[in-house]
């Protein structure tokens, strides 16, 4: 009998920055057949204080919330509760409201179905059938401007706003009102891969490059993604982190009679 097995890998690099403010964490893979598997990546918000502390709190809070969840909790409830507790935790280390913060991308796979949640501008991709699908929506000024221009509330000229990349949602924000999550869990199967990454990766590599790397053998994907990012030689290279959840079949022992 075959069951779905999720193998996880991750890699990270400081880039050209003085501090590493990305963090990554995941649940123990050995319990995945019972309760599922969670993977989380977080990026300390640039320009704010204590980015590493904030991002580490985010990923650790998400994983601890997962471990403390009840059997009857749905993945959506677990992700949302984790995000709410992460928000409280990061606010708890602030001396002034909003003075530190971090993005959050989390994917939870249970019984062959994946749910995800995102706050900020880190990303989650699905690699399926040799192509990428970007699953998440960013909470940044660019997205808000695009909607307002499309609805006719703002003129086309607003598209060139020089603060387009400013985040409109991050964990630790004083009035956090925006996030993105899967409307419904979706089925995953052998050959599918979920990649969670910070903007240091997708801001440097092209979609074609990311796609090509996602097709490599499972054990090579995360480290190659980071190696190729660093090899680009961007003089301002941001911290870069990727975590990969690879779906494959695990052969289980037949039960005895």
């Amino acid at each position, binding site marked *: 009998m075959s069951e779905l097995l999720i193998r996880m890998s991750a890699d990270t690099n400081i880039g050209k920055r003085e501090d590493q403010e990305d963090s990554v964490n995941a649940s123990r893979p050995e319990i995945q057949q019972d309760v599922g598997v969670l993977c989380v990546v977080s990026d300390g918000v640039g320009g704010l204080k204590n980015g590493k502390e904030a991002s580490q709190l985010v990923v650790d809070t998400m994983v601890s919330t997962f471990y403390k969840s009840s059997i009857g909790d749905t993945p959506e409830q677990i992700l949302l509760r984790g*995000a709410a507790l992460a928000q409280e935790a990061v606010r708890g280390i602030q001396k002034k409201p909003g003075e530190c913060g971090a993005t959050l991308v989390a994917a939870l796979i249970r019984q062959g179905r994946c749910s995800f949640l995102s706050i900020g501008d880190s990303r989650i991709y699905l690699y399926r059938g040799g*192509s990428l699908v970007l699953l*998440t929506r960013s909470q940044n000024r660019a997205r808000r401007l695009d909607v307002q221009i499309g609805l006719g509330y703002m003129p086309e000229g607003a598209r060139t706003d020089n603060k387009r990349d400013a985040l409109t949602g991050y964990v630790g924000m004083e009035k*956090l009102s925006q996030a993105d999550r899967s409307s*419904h869990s979706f089925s995953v199967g052998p050959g599918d891969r979920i990649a969670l990454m910070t903007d240091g990766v997708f801001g440097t590599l092209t979609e074609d490059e990311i796609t090509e790397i996602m097709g490599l053998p499972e054990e090579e994907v995360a480290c190659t993604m980071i190696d190729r990012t660093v090899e680009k030689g961007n003089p301002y290279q941001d911290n870069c982190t990727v975590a990969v959840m690879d779906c494959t079949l695990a052969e289980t022992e037949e039960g005895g009679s």
Partner: protein
Amino acid sequence: MPPAKTDPYMYQTGSAQWIGTRELQNDVVYISNPDPQKGLVVAIADGIGLDQAARKAAGLAISTLREDYEHMASAPDISDQVLRMIGKAQKSVLEWNRSLLSRGELTTGATMACMLIREGRAGIASVGNVRTFLVRSGRILQLNRDHLLNLQEEMSSILAGEVPEIEAKMAMMVTAYIGMEGLKDVDFLQEPVRLQTDDCLLMMSSGLYGVLEEEELIKLAGTGPPGPAAIRVMDQVRRLQGESQSNASLVIVRVSR
């Protein structure tokens, strides 16, 4: 259909509708001719309510979107274009609603999704719960969001231990619609999906939700010419008809070389 000049793919379309147990069909469907410069547009508007006004709202949204597409001279960015078409639909239905209000009549609106396919990519924008899916490698993925997350409310609820039935709530509620005063919640893909041969895109109104199991939908809709496939799906919906079956509309787009 002839292939687009600059597009590596061909797109076959098919659609089916059923009035269900309602007296009126308040879903309106639009499928453009594929234009090599402008692309292929698919849209569904689902009028809110059971009366003629709901039908009129959906019809007005679609006719405005269609007019914008047909008179478009250039080919702007895919995401910008779908947002603009949704924006035009919103403006026309909102203006109509305001004229209704001025006469002391009740206002209405429509949920809506619009998909633009061009040069091997699909951009999607939507308001409300008309859903779009990608069927690839035998699995289905919802591409758009039913609703945007009311984060403050849901995080507060979950920390208070109220454990909201998130998915059930989301399935029942329409928190944004075309024609709504002050509309802000427009979902659109962060990046258009890169398509590949044998991909199948589905767009469906809420009358189809929960009637078919996922595997059955993939089997009926995901293979063969899209016209007969759409009819097969609708025939099965009819067979499984509940006591209160809403209007149901489905569009299938099959991608080939």
